[in-house]
């Protein structure tokens, strides 16, 4: 059964179909919200909130649009809301490396490099960060990013270029600091 069938069933009130949708997309959505938030607990909370919003608005979803774009858009907004709620006054660059989390599989050096990357991403403005994440991690095409964020493809390209330039600069600064 493909996503479209599951959505149709879920729109009629089938909770099992909705659960199947959640299981299918959980990985990509948590990955997206994790890249946005830089913290797994926050990311999973935002992902769950995104799925609740999907459930509440299933009737407004039109099959002519890609479900993934619709879902990513809701998840992006949920992640941003979550970040604003959790850290309303904190400056992103004040986050310590420990805050940004590490994985046991990575070596100390890799962990430090990964933390640098997350910190550099966190320093990007929201519009730049979202476009960069959707392209680099979620591997969406320019058109899919444009559909997801409801912006022109040209804006996607310019934001992506700016994000990459700023990210390289931030990474250079961070590597010089350590």
């Amino acid at each position, binding site marked *: 059964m493909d996503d479209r069938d599951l959505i149709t069933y*879920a*729109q*009629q*009130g*089938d*909770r099992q179909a*909705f*659960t199947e949708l*959640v*299981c299918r997309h*959980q*990985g990509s959505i*948590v*990955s997206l919200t*994790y*890249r946005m938030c830089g913290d*797994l607990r926050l990311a*999973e909370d935002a*992902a*769950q*909130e995104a*799925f*609740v*919003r*999907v*459930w*509440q*608005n*299933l*009737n*407004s*979803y*039109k099959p002519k*649009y890609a479900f993934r774009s*619709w879902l990513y*858009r*809701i998840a992006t*907004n949920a992640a941003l*809301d979550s970040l604003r709620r959790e850290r309303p006054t904190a400056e992103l660059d004040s986050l310590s490396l420990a805050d940004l*989390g590490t*994985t046991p*599989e*990575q070596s100390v050096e*890799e962990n430090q*490099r*990964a933390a640098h*990357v*997350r910190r550099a991403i966190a320093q990007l403005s929201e519009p730049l960060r979202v476009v960069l994440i959707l*392209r*680099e*991690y979620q591997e969406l*095409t*320019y058109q899919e990013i444009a559909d997801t964020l*409801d912006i022109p493809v040209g804006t996607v*390209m310019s934001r*992506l*270029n700016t994000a*990459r330039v700023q990210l*390289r600069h931030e*990474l250079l600064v961070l590597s010089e600091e350590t």
Partner: protein
Amino acid sequence: MNPHLSELLPAYHDGELTSNRQRQVEKHLQDCPTCRAELKALEELSSLLKADFVPDPTPPERFAAQVQLRLPRASLSRTHQREGQPPRWVLGVPLALIIVWAFLQAALTVTAFILTTDQVLGQPVAFFDSWIPTEGLFQTIASLLIFNTILLMGTTILWSAWMALWLAWNKNQNESSIKGGVT
């Protein structure tokens, strides 16, 4: 002079160029060390970003169960039905029209009863003299019927106008699409 293709390199790196443009960039890259270095920098940045893995998330089944717990308590169909319905005031106005119509209809019936009784008893009521003929039973009943018809027609016209507005609103709601629910 070898003009650089810096503006095309990100799209080339992302696989977003048309085949013609792609060939153009590939040809250019063979002769331009500056653009090759620029492309390499883009590739290194992507590799660096992708080297950072997402920690193991909650297993899908458990995650889905947690989502279920956060869903509104009302059954899905009822929740969706409520979302598909118009605001209460949209239904409230026709309801108010019915109540007003029923009240006026009742008042008219009582008036008719009093007048016709008075006519039968031969005691016209002065209060009604100015707006309903009270001198003949047939004339009185005819006037009351005209009043009644005007009242019914007025209510029907108002009701129809309101239903037309509601249908237009409903159509508009159905056309709202991908933006729905997104903050």
